[in-house]
């Protein structure tokens, strides 16, 4: 803020305004969800909204996806730096991973909000596009050796509206270079619309309370958030944690995968957490490099997953987390022109896991296990021609995977977790809607019983899914992780199962596919995929037998695993609904096996 805010306001008023601003973010979110044209936006909610202050601090992000939104204030800063003539009525498009964005597929719409001539806020709506004009029909180009091979149109905070009027040049550029341009244009209008809704509401808010109170609120709210963070960190023990992770191989470039290392220093006395990421490999000649925004967001998500969930996520609480990054590293600040095409998911997912699980080293009750990773068959970008509409082209990302969530010290993994970077906040597609929108047919979708990593609290199981085209061939592209290295358990919890993918020929022959796949599926053929599952927390032998019983009745667990991994013996049977825990036999079995560590995969 340019001017000093006045003395503190009533804490109740601070809470009221903070909730009102979250309400504005939710109204933006609903606008975009209802107005978006592509399924990845209007069904899967692969987008996030936020309010940033005039001096480029993240103020509120409500249910924004962690990976999208924790760095969005840096894009607002880029906008202000590039445009000295910033004015009311402007809107900007930003998707440049080298000046603050996550990856090029996330089009971020930025609207500076002015009140009484002062730039008080920036409204940000960031949506993953169905297509961005990449050299192949996917928004995740794993094989792109640089930004040129990736092929996306890049907009480094480019003005798209002036004085509330559209700058048609940019629209023409996109229409000339993005697949299914009408779909893109609908999402473009929805994105601007969401940001404009926020502008209107924030002006109403300013008119109601006056500029001075709003400025005082901004200062107080960020300071309060910092205080909450200080209290959260002070409750932790002083420690230096080191954790490692590894992304799957990507043949032939990365036969050993991508190793990751996160070093965390917790300093309760100064209420600070320092994350050192500098000991990581250099940028690689493919699309798996992290943008700075994704590095920061993924690590921040891992940190927040290990803290009191009530701590507001904004620039105030971020003040207590220091990140040490190296330029030209695969996680950190990318060196141009290395591609960040897949920055929001794969390596970022591993970073969320690696950071969150590190905190479990502090002792029982801290941190969480690793969640299921991998954008496999059920996260593929599908494209082709639609025989129902004069063979018109379609392209869209399916968001119908679940990838089991990780167990924590007090809860089982969330079933429809999605990915570590979205933490269950995205929606899943509906099979019926996907079949209506695209000429495809789902053959089956079912949970895999017993796939969740065992533990005192267990990871959520993964899903088994298969689909194929109705008429013309369908191009399926995905950059899956978690097919070689599954999610790891913590504090004695077991790891999750790996993802897999198969091509099924017309005569039913299943052929295993590599983890990074581009394939054309013809009529009569199918593609089948397994999601990975979440890992467990704590010794499975300590799991409440009643929870194991419930899991078996619901077919989330198998009776065999109940006995072997959890040491739970049942009497009766599922068939006549008489299944019950045999307490004496269970106690005897568990007493005899407490010495054995749980290592089941």
């Amino acid at each position: 803020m340019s001017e000093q805010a006045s003395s503190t306001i009533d804490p109740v008023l601070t809470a009221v305004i903070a909730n009102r601003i979250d309400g504005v973010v939710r109204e933006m979110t609903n606008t975009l969800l209802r107005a978006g044209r592509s399924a990845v936006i209007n069904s899967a909610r692969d987008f996030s909204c936020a309010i940033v202050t005039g001096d480029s601090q993240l103020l509120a992000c409500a249910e924004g996806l962690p990976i999208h939104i924790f760095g969005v204030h840096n894009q607002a800063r880029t906008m202000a730096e590039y445009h000295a003539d910033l004015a009311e009525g402007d809107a900007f498009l930003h998707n440049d991973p080298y000046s603050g964005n996550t990856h090029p597929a996330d089009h971020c719409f930025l609207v500076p909000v002015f009140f009484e001539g002062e730039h008080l806020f920036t409204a940000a709506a960031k949506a993953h596009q169905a297509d961005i004009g990449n050299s192949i029909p996917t928004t995740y180009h794993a094989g792109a050796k640089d930004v040129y091979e990736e092929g996306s149109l890049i907009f480094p905070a480019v003005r798209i509206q002036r004085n509330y009027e559209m700058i048609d040049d940019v629209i023409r550029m996109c229409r000339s270079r993005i697949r299914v341009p009408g779909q893109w244009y609908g999402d473009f209008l929805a994105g601007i619309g969401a940001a404009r809704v926020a502008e209107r509401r924030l002006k109403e808010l300013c008119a109601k309370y006056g500029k001075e109170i709003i400025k005082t609120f901004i200062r107080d709210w960020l300071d309060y958030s910092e205080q909450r963070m200080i209290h959260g960190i002070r409750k932790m023990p002083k420690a230096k944690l080191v954790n490692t992770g590894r992304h799957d191989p990507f043949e032939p470039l990365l036969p050993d995968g991508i190793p990751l290392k996160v070093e965390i220093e917790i300093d309760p006395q100064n209420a600070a957490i320092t994350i050192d990421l500098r000991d990581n490999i250099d940028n690689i000649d493919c699309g798996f490099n992290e943008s700075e925004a994704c590095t920061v967001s993924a690590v921040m998500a891992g940190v927040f997953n290990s803290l009191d969930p009530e701590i507001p996520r904004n620039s105030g609480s971020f003040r207590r987390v220091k990140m040490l990054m190296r330029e030209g590293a695969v996680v950190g600040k990318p060196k141009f022109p290395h591609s960040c095409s897949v920055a929001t998911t794969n390596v970022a997912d591993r970073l969320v896991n690696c950071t969150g699980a590190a905190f479990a080293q502090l002792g029982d009750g801290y941190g969480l296990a690793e969640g299921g990773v991998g954008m496999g068959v059920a996260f593929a970008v599908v494209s082709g021609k639609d025989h129902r509409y004069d063979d018109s082209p379609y392209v869209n990302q399916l968001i119908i995977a679940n990838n089991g969530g990780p167990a924590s010290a007090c809860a089982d993994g969330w079933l429809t977790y999605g990915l570590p970077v979205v933490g269950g906040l995205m929606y899943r597609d509906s099979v019926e809607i996907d079949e209506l929108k695209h000429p495809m047919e789902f053959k089956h979708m079912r949970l895999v019983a017993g796939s969740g990593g065992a533990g005192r609290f267990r990871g959520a199981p993964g899903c088994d899914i298969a689909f194929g085209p109705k008429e013309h061939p369908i191009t399926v592209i995905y950059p899956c992780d978690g097919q070689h290295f599954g999610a790891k358990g913590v504090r004695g919890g077991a790891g999750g199962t790996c993802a897999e993918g198969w091509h099924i020929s017309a005569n039913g022959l299943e052929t295993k596919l590599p983890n990074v796949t581009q394939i054309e599926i013809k009529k009569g053929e199918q593609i089948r995929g397994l999601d990975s599952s979440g890992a467990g927390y704590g010794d499975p032998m300590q799991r409440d037998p009643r929870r194991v019983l419930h899991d078996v009745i619901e077919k989330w667990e198998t009776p065999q695993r109940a006995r072997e991994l959890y040491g739970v013996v049942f009497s009766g049977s599922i068939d006549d609904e008489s299944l019950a825990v045999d307490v004496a036999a269970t106690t005897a079995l568990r007493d005899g096996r407490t010495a054995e560590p749980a290592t089941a995969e």
Partner: protein
Amino acid sequence: MMLLAAEPAIDPVVTAVIANRIDGIVREMTNTLLRAARSAVISSARDFSCGICTADNQLLACVEGLPIHIFGVHEQARAMTTAHPRDFTSFRSSRTPGKSCTIGACAHGCDPQITACKLGLGTLL
């Protein structure tokens, strides 16, 4: 096609003089680009062409422009005027008394001519 009724025919000599003068402008464009360009494909190999189109998008002159570049360049001028209807007034209306000629901002002076040139860039992204 020129919609504006031309003035009575001028002296053929004047016609030839102006035609050569316009070719001279194209050559001056060409030399400017050749001397100012940074990439070798432009500054050494001259993989570019210049042309002058009329305001109603007919190719008027292209001297030593490469045939593949330049014989259709008036279609791009047409795309420009079509894409920016509010910024470009037509040749006819620009001559209408009382209406200003807004193309002057893009072309040279207030001459109702539109210049266009084509480049083979060193790296096509």
